[in-house]
């Protein structure tokens, strides 16, 4: 009996298990969310991560298979695609995109991931008890502007889209689509707020963070979409008149990081790293296997246009020749000492101004803006022409100026209702393609997003 008693004692001893035994230290590579927003350093590190994400894998990354710059250029009439794969890249170039297209779902998924990221920063900063009001405003404002930029592209690519500023997954998983016009209204509110929160003055002399003027440019884009020409004119006015900016007259200096015409650019990760724009399009001494500039685009340049020599490179092989984008020159990591990825540059406010003015039948005021771009490219200034011709000239000039940059071509054609013009070079083009299909998985995971966009 004694034995059993002993055994019993032993058991009781063991059963008094201490909770502490299963306590663990926090992982060394993670920081509690509240802690992140207790100091400006860590809070800004969270924001830095969002900027890095924009630079490395977002719709506004300079170039790549999942970026507006490359995809939309091949979707419309700027790039020809030579990839020999069977995934969605080629289908987008051929306008054969379906709801199962993995490139489209990739764009959607990363964009909403960044929306959450921004929302998380906004929530963390606004609820922080340790950050000063200045710090809060700067962090919240920049995150808000980034989120708006992402939403802007999502809305333009997909039409009606789910809009959320919540972190609650139970709510976010059941979102319904918000009407496109409502999304734009919401974006106007958000960007206006961001413009109030952040300053004109750059946080960094290299203009790698967003400032108020960038927000105002975003607002102008939204006003164009809503055909509020006067408001657009007004917004752009503040940018053009700002002493911060100066029009760059030298075509070969446009993508140099020190330019006073730059509103916002993204800095590569390491000193000397090449931009995506420089390395992605590069090929030499061979037939193309990724992208080349579409012959139709190349032919649209006047022979005297400086941009042919400065922003394009010819590749010849086997008695054939192609052109590749060459706006950025330093393709090798380590050798890039003067190029950052320029997201917003003064040429865009010029075009917006010209567009806003011509819509108000003020061609005389609009012409100088268009001519500034033309003259920089070594072309003659335009003189008086019909408003319709002006619009066409503006569109064509913007194509030549912004080719392979952030989907400008698609956004412009769409806004002005000229998308069907690309049918001349895009045999498969149909009207419904002005929006992409929502990713199939997304509809399966959240049936509230039904119906699918028309046509798909």
């Amino acid at each position, binding site marked *: 009996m004694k*034995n*059993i008693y*002993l*055994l019993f004692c032993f*058991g009781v001893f*063991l*059963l008094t*298990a201490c909770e502490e*035994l*299963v*306590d*663990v230290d*926090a*992982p*060394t*590579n*993670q*920081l*509690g*969310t*509240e802690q*992140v927003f207790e100091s400006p350093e860590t809070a800004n*590190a969270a924001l*830095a*991560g*969002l900027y*890095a*994400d924009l630079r490395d894998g977002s719709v506004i990354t300079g170039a790549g298979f999942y970026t507006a710059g490359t995809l939309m250029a091949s979707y419309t009439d700027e790039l020809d695609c030579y990839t020999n794969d*069977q995934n969605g890249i*080629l289908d987008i170039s051929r306008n*054969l995109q*379906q709801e*199962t297209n993995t490139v489209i779902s990739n764009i*959607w998924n990363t964009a*909403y*991931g960044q929306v*959450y*990221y921004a929302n998380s920063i906004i929530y963390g900063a606004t609820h922080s008890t340790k950050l000063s009001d200045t710090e809060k405003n700067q962090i919240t404002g920049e995150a808000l502007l980034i989120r708006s930029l992402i939403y802007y592209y999502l809305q333009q690519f997909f039409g009606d889209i*789910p809009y959320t500023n919540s972190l609650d*997954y139970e709510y*976010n*998983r059941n*979102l319904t689509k918000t009407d496109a016009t409502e999304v734009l209204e919401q974006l106007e509110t958000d960007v206006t707020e961001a413009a109030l929160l952040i300053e004109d003055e750059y946080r960094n002399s290299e203009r790698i*963070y967003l400032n108020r003027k960038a927000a105002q440019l975003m607002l102008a884009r939204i006003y164009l979409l809503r055909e509020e020409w006067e408001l657009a004119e007004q917004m752009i006015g503040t940018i053009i008149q700002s002493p911060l900016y100066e029009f760059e007259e030298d075509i070969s200096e446009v993508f140099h990081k020190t330019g006073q015409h730059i509103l916002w650019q993204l*800095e590569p990760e390491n000193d*000397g*790293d090449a931009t995506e724009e420089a*390395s992605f399009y590069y090929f030499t*001494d*061979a*037939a193309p*296997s990724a992208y080349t500039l579409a012959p139709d685009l190349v032919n649209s340049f006047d022979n005297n246009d400086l941009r042919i020599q400065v922003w394009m490179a010819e590749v010849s092989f086997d008695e*054939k020749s192609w052109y590749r984008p060459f706006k950025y020159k330093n393709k*090798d*990591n*380590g*050798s890039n000492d003067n190029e950052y990825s320029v997201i917003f540059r003064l040429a865009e406010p010029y075009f917006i101004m010209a567009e806003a003015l011509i819509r108000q039948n003020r061609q005389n005021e609009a012409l100088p803006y268009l001519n500034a771009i033309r003259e920089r490219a070594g072309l003659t200034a335009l003189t008086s022409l019909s408003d319709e011709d002006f619009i066409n000239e503006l569109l064509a000039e913007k194509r030549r100026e912004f080719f392979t940059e952030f989907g400008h071509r698609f956004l412009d054609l769409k806004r002005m209702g000229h998308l069907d013009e690309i049918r001349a070079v895009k045999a*498969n083009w149909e009207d419904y393609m002005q929006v992409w299909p929502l*990713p199939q998985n*997304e509809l399966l995971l959240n049936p509230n997003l039904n119906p699918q966009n028309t046509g798909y």
Partner: protein
Amino acid sequence: MQNFKSYSSALLRRVSQILNGMDRTLKLLVIFCIPILLFSGHAYAQTINVSGRVTDQNKQPLPGVNVVLKESPSIGTITEANGRYFLDDVPTDAILSFSFIGFKTTEIPVNGRSLVDLQLQEDITTLSEVTVNAGYYTVKERERTGSISTVAAKEIENQPVNNVLSAVQGRMAGVNITQGSGVPGGGYNIQIRGVNSLRRAGNYPMYIIDGVPVSAESSSSLSGAILPRGETSPLNAINPNDIESIEILKDADATAIYGSRGANGVILVTTKKGKAGGKTVFSINSSYGISRIANKMELMNTEQYLEMRRQAYANDGRTDYPANAYDVNGTWDESRYTDWQEELIGETATNSNIQLSVNGGSQTTRFLISGSHNEQSTVYGKGFKYKTNNLSWNLNHRSEDNKFILNANTLFSDQSNNLVQADITSKTLILSPNAPALYQGDGSLNWENKTFNNPVAAYEATYSSKVKTINLNMNISYELLPAVYIKLNGGINQQGSEELLLSPNTKYNPAFGITPARSSAYKSQNRLFSYLVEPQMNYKQKYGDHEFDLLSGSTYQQRDKTSLQIFGYGFESNALITNLEAANTVSVQNDAKTEYRYFAVFGRVNYQYKKRYIVNLTGRRDGSSRFGTNNRFASFGAVGAAWLFSEENFLKNSTWLNFGKLRASYGTTGNDLIGDYQYLDTYTLSSTSYGGSSSLYPSRLYNPYFSWEKTTKLEVALETGFLNDRMHFSAVWYRNRSGNQLVGIPLPATTGFSSIQANLPATVENKGTEFELNTTPIQTKDFRWGSDLNISFPTNKLVEFPGIEGSTYANSYEVGYPVSIKKVYNYEGIDPETGLYTFTDYNDDGSITSPDDNQVIEDVGIKYFGGWSNQFAYKRWDFSFLFQFVKQRQSSYNALMLNPGTMNNQPVEVLDVWSETNPDGRYMAYTSGADAQKNKVLRYFKNSTATISDASFIRLKNVQLSYRLPVYKKVQDIRLYVQGQNLLTFTDYFGLDPEFFSTGFLPPLRTWSFGLQLNF
């Protein structure tokens, strides 16, 4: 006098044993007689010295046989290497008991002889003697209440495999093992009674090597493109020849004592121990093997291929071939033909193995030291190699009085693997057969004027790993009080791995003008340190017909893992690529330390009545650091019972039935395989930076409330032995239900993440039957034939899933169906009007869309599987073979196929193409990829019923032939053997091989090996 005492006490015990078995009158009589017996014991206690030689049926000496006095088992010895034994002072009327694992225990009266030779009979089953390792305790096979499958060394020795899991495929009922790849050093998919968890990572079994749990999760982080799922197996670190036995615990009775980690079954690996033979035995075992791909797909030849390509352009209405259609536009030689499977994965891989070991010791202390080296090349050639070194030693000691027992093991392994970075097997199936030569005349890579993406360039990019593992285990037991044992099981498991993923610029076509400034290298280091302490107490007592066996104990385990991954980019020269100091840009991708703490108390109560009725209660209370503070602890338990009906009087003397048992068990187990820290709300430090600032990103959606997955297991089994153990049959029925599913619930991207960790109120049921039949149809003096068959019929069903309709799983699962289903479009054939594939438009909306039209539920799982093995022993010859069979459905090559007509080769089946003149054609007319309609329907086709087909197979898994040479002088044993692995496969499967868990990887190889084993 000492001798007399022990003899008389043994006698007393014997008497009381006899008494127990008698009725009352007889007892009285016997008690009356005791003094006489005692006296007579004294009177006849004359002693002599006895010696003799013990051999097996083949008259081979048997070292290590236990020879004891039956009356007094503490007196005895062990046979030496030559089978001889010597026993002094043996009473002339003593009975000697000879016992040895695998042989029938034999008792021989001395009858005053001084020479007692014996030929031991091999015992196939010896149910009464065999004990089974159940982890925390051992149990006699006949008294076991749980479900435990065992494979012993004999069946797995000398097989030409790197991992023991390859050797046990098909040998155990209810255990389905799939090898991931034919590349050495990879992982396996093991399902012990099916898939319990809806998470893939939640289905790993628990591995315990010599009492120390090892992590089932692979620490490899860079091998994803060459090893399926980037997984390795924890058992890669053990030489299969060092393994004594593998036990797999399946039901609640066996696994509940492992609590929160037992739901997916437990794999116990026991390594070999020293055998006392008086003499020290040295062994050498060496083998050499060659392997080749087991099967090739029959692909189009150049003529057929070019015809397909031209037809494709013709169908698309194109007469001029595009500039990059090098295969047909005249750029490439149209008369070339290369069998790319032969060229790229057709090398003969070699496998050489050498093992040296020494074992010996005395009766109280034994040791074993073993070292081995293995080298295996790949079918890619190019010097890619997998090398392992294993060193292990074992020491066990028992005190003279048997009260103290110590057992210490050390297993050290050093694996180094050097492989191509990405498997090119699937590439060999699609390369144009008229693609140019791989090399130029001078041996350099041929890029054919930059028109050819030379596949060999892929070999420039390599993956290599070095893994060092140490597993230390110490097990101490002491009999504190009579029948009360205190034990301590402790162990340390340390694993260090270093991986290197090199991508020099030479892997790219020089057309891109890429210089070493774009060469890159990843380096990853993982360190894992785990220790375990398990104090235990055991109490065994017998009161008449009642027998108790009580066990209680606790477990504390700590596991710390550090990982570091560094990326280097841009080198001056590729000669410096392995040193990240030389990189222009270096970034730390990951630097993490994670901790895991685990604490538990457990117990077992085993009660037997008359050795006929057995009840076994087990339980465990677990705490794990993987859960939020409110959900850290949980309890698990099981009850098992057995009835040995063959012991009942009405069957006891049956001539045909010598063993019969009914057993049942019921209980719960859990699953905590969800990774560490998942309950925290954090930001994670990222490897990227911006503007000189390091960056932080949100780690996950926050949910601290999830808890354990629980699996409730029920089992009923019948075990029988017939005709003097010549035939054994067992049948098992089980039903496991896993609820409270802990899953990353897929979320729409609008939540910011693809999933959230949470418990889902769903239940997965695994139900099935398993049958095993072990027979010895022939057993004569010189010839023995043993034949074993096992077959398992698993079924899997999602029984419950409240709210599935609105849930995110609606497209992947269906209540009432297995979790392995695929929902696909119903393929109807080719429309004679349009020549396009057609599918059933279930919702009649005129177009094929998901989820309304992909409604056909196809089960891509296993219907039944098993193995049939036969062993023949004739004099000095041993021959055995094993057939493995699996009845299953799987995705066929149709699901992987690229659009026929594009610049990709196709299987010859694709020649059967539809046209107006061939209306029964199997495939749609070719297209070069320009036909949007065809591209679209092909996509549906690849996700339709046309891609799911029978993938059943019967495989001649293993053949062994060995011959034992007549011994010569000091050499005790020489054995020559030939082994074959995966020799034949019978299947109708359309694809490279029906055994896979992730498509596109090299299938398991066919191997022949020859070897020599020498003991002296």
